[in-house]
């Protein structure tokens, strides 16, 4: 039976200690309550960028703390929201002269805890705005009030907003930009095998041979539908077309994020990327930027997500601006 290699007690705390020990020049660990802050920030930055959420999605969010991205990140337990006190203390530590921007994935627990923290910050006289990321088209249903889940496109939002914050963008403008990016970003994910249950071991749910979970999230829940596996090319083509169809109709260029869900290899992810590019070329859509790798997994689920962001002209420079964080890959500098 498969198992995860985690200590029985305080697994998240121990992992965070390791992250800080491995990157002492980039980030600082705070233990009471638990959060991570950046050691350095751009002199022009006026707004502290703070994100967070359940653990099990590493390197999201703590791996993206540092110059050019987040000023602080707050981890919850595995697949569980952080406490409002962590968000509150991290935000106080990270606030800039214009205040704090919270980047929140759309989950009920995260929404409530970030909002409670925001009320506390406002009572302290610190301005707060929020960007809600809700990119997952599998949960796009008019029937529920909870809306689409927030998944891998959170990485794109954190990168672009980090670069914009380094240009000295004011709080309201940064919040508007983040909401614009989130509204231009959509994702879908597929899984072939469940993640390992973190402390009891074994697969969290069983899939029968020859089927796929189409439309999974990043919290290890089953998808809305279990479907017959029709093969690699039809699967990737369908995902690409479905996400593209969810973007604004005049979309001419996109940012592509092919994200592993934890157990899927780079051998696979780059093969997926090639197929996505081929499909986009047939549809006459340009690729203005890309990210291929594991950035927002569901522990060790076997599967991948495809996120597309309809790119505004001014966002390309933001995407290509440098970062120094534990986990964001150095981007290309085409000019």
């Amino acid at each position, binding site marked *: 039976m498969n198992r995860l290699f985690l200590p029985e007690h305080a697994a998240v705390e121990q992992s965070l200690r390791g992250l800080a020990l491995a990157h002492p020049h980039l980030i600082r660990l705070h233990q009471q309550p638990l959060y991570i802050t950046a050691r350095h920030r751009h002199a022009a930055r006026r707004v502290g960028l703070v994100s967070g959420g359940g653990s099990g999605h590493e390197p999201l969010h703590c791996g993206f703390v540092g110059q050019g991205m987040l000023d602080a990140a707050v981890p919850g337990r595995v697949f569980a929201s952080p406490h*409002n*006190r962590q968000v509150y203390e991290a935000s106080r530590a990270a606030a800039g002269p214009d205040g704090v921007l919270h980047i929140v994935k759309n989950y009920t627990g995260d929404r*409530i*805890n970030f*909002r*409670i923290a925001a*009320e*506390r910050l406002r*009572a302290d006289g610190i301005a707060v705005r929020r960007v809600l990321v809700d990119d997952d088209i599998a949960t796009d249903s008019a029937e529920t009030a909870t809306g689409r889940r927030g998944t891998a496109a959170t990485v794109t939002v954190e990168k672009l907003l980090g670069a914009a914050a380094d240009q000295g963008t004011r709080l309201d403008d940064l919040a508007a930009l983040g909401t614009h990016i989130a509204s231009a970003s959509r994702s879908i994910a597929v899984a072939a095998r469940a993640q390992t249950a973190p402390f009891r071991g074994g697969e969290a749910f069983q899939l029968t041979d020859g089927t796929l979970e189409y439309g999974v999230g990043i919290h290890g829940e089953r998808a809305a539908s279990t479907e017959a596996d029709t093969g690699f090319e039809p699967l990737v083509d369908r995902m690409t077309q479905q996400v593209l169809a969810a973007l604004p109709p005049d979309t001419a260029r996109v940012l592509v994020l092919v994200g592993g869900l934890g157990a899927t290899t780079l051998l696979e992810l780059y093969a997926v990327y090639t197929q996505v590019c081929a499909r986009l070329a047939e549809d006459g859509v340009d690729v203005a930027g890309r990210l291929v790798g594991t950035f927002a997994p569901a522990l060790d689920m076997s599967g991948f997500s495809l996120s597309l962001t309809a790119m505004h002209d001014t966002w390309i420079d933001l995407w290509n601006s440098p970062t120094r964080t534990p986990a964001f890959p150095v981007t290309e500098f085409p000019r």
Partner: protein
Amino acid sequence: MSIDQRRLMRTYAHSVHMAHNTLTALDQLSGDGDFGDNLCEGLDQVTTALDAAPTEPAFTIAARVFLDEVGGTSGPLIGLLFQEIAHALADHNSEAGWAAGVREGLAAIQRVGEAQAGDRTMVDALLPASDALAAGGDAHASALAALNGAKATASLRARRGRASYVGERVLGAPDPGAVGVALLFWSRAKVMEQEPGVLADILSAGQGLIPADLDMQGG
């Protein structure tokens, strides 16, 4: 008239302890049954902190304890109510300050939880109490409004919070969060009233929510 925050908080802690079993029973119908425990433990921590910090305003202490230490979602939401009351009383320790704090606390809770009137949450006790205060009502009037609001949740289906998962199974019993908040206004009326007899109509409004012998107990 200025507000004795410490006396009010101790009376509230006492009232909640008396209603502990009722709150637990109500929460077992719709949630995981820990609301009464969380509220009691939180208020115990507040009373301990009151003794340890004799000069700090009681609602400031209560806000910190409920926001930082109390589990569940209801605890931190009640912490926001305490935070706004603490702020408003720091500006004006008066009936007007109390009314402003309740109004701002309600607004903060609604911003966070997105609950409207009739969603079967603590808002259904807090909103009528705030409205009564805004209309110039006194502690007595706002306690009546809060208790009647809490009682009326018995006929509401939940649309927010965990009770929303169990649908019509909770009909007939009031929402524990609404009862817990209503007890704050009941406690304020109790602190204010000189004549014990005038509590009678509040007690009848609180029938089933307030243990019968609560008015006989000291604050």
